[in-house]
């Protein structure tokens, strides 16, 4: 029992009390329910990984978006997190491909360019398939710096680089921004100078 409680306690937002409550709930629930839960956790870990092209979550080598032949490879939208991909997909307004960085630059937190998938993005641009790069990192100090950092490195490899400045509120991230706002800022995106 104690082993389960301390495992649950290690999950984000789960405190000691909640962990105990969850453990007792699992103890009193049907055995089949508990088996289904542990099975789906294992299956998820075994089957889902990260896309080798865009670093979005994927079942297999490539994610569903990269595998989809109808997507337009001439536009790549650069986001911080797989949750941002979900937010864009919900709008249905974007038909290009993505590139997930896995965060944003923050020297204070030790996030250097090497810890993000920036090098992989530059490699990806070498093929010449992409004509536009949309930089959709968060409209924060670190998100702005990350966008500028990428622009400076990528501008020789792609025709057009645009920036989406989502929201006016500082620290707002894509996964809390509604679909209409995302769609509007996609339409209103501007070249980065």
């Amino acid at each position, binding site marked *: 029992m104690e082993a389960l409680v301390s495992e649950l306690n290690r999950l984000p937002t789960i405190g000691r009390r909640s962990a105990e409550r969850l453990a007792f709930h699992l103890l009193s629930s049907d055995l089949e329910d508990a088996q289904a839960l542990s099975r789906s956790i294992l299956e998820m870990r075994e089957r889902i990984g990260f896309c080798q092209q865009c670093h979005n979550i994927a079942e297999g080598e490539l994610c569903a978006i990269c595998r989809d032949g109808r997507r337009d490879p001439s536009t790549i939208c650069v986001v911080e997190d797989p949750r941002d991909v979900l937010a864009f997909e919900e709008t249905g307004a974007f038909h290009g491909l993505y590139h997930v960085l896995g965060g944003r*630059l923050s*020297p*204070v937190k030790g996030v*250097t360019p090497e810890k993000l998938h920036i090098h992989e993005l530059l490699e990806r641009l070498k093929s010449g398939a992409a004509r536009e790069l949309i930089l959709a990192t968060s409209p924060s100090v670190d998100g*702005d*710096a990350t966008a*500028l*950092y990428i622009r400076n490195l990528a501008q020789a490899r792609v025709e057009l680089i645009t920036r989406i400045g989502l929201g006016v509120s500082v620290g707002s991230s894509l996964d809390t921004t509604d679909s209409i706002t995302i769609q509007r800022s996609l339409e209103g995106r501007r070249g980065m100078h």
Partner: protein
Amino acid sequence: MNGWPESGGCKIDMRLQSISIRNFRNLESLELEFSSGLNVIHGLNGQGKTNLLEAMFYLVTGRSFRTHQDGAVLPLGAAADAVAAIEGLVIRENGGRNRLRVAISRQGKRILIDEKPVAQLAGLWGRLRAVLFTPDDLMILKDGPALRRRMIDITLSQIDAGYLAALQNYSRALRQRNLLLRDAEERRAPRDQILAFNAPLAQWGAAIHEKRRRFLHDLGERAARLYAGIAPSSETLELEYRDALHGKKFSSPEAALTAWRKMMDGNIETDIRRGQTLRGAHREDMRLELSGRDLRQFGSQGQLRTAMLSLRLAELELMRDWSGEPAILMLDDLASELDAPRRNQLFTRLDAGLQTILTTIDPELLGSRLENARTIHLQDGRLISTD
């Protein structure tokens, strides 16, 4: 110009109706009601008068004006889970009511507005606006630029939400850039990353600059007029903004932004050698002159006191005019702050409708003004009497 929700063109009244304090320094448990005019808190030294103002100012800025460490306000020898709590009721004439609460423990600080937690300190600013006037204020004029920037920041942040946001973003960008500079060996400095953080640093630096410029221009005019009224002589007080770009004027916000970018980009090599960002909003200052002579260097004690009084009165006026509602005056230690002539100058200039909360050892200093005042007698952190 300003983004606080309550701001408008019309003048409305705002006041601190009551305050409740628990476990704050020597104030174990205190409940006070204030009048909308003059409130006089009196008692001997060391009884908790300044602690009370410190607690009150927590409701304005979410911070102490005496220490950088919140934990220092917990009573001596307090238990590990002790909580110092300050709760104030702010009432506006248009019917607006806000219950502001700041709770401080060794684990951190919690701010609640009308029982709802506020994630960012910025959520508190602008709910209760006040000008604080303390015996240490003369240091603002005598000491280095940091205290003068702090004075500007505290006042301007209360009336302009955009300024507070710009300050926070600027200091974040500065922290990131300075870390890159500090750890950099000269030849292997991550210039591409430093360059990337120059953009937000310049963006928010330019925003701060424009707001400070307008603020100090207005403040300087008001302070000069007030100074002339308090000390009728041929001396004229002048306030000059010593900005990062040496007073250069710009035709547009874009031109200013470009100049900030050029400054940051151009300083990279010097900054790498010195391991820090040498120029910017974090190095700006204001300079006061009396008939062309630097007040800091040449001002007499009396001139410094009159200048400081003029500045605080100018802030009160400016906050009222920019935000559309009067700010509260909090004055610590009436006797040591102001001599008799300057006390009279202060009181004749205060609006009748202005809420004032002051502390003093000797309430008799107030003379006949005491008749219409609410008096609060503190002893050993406890309320002895009130009327």
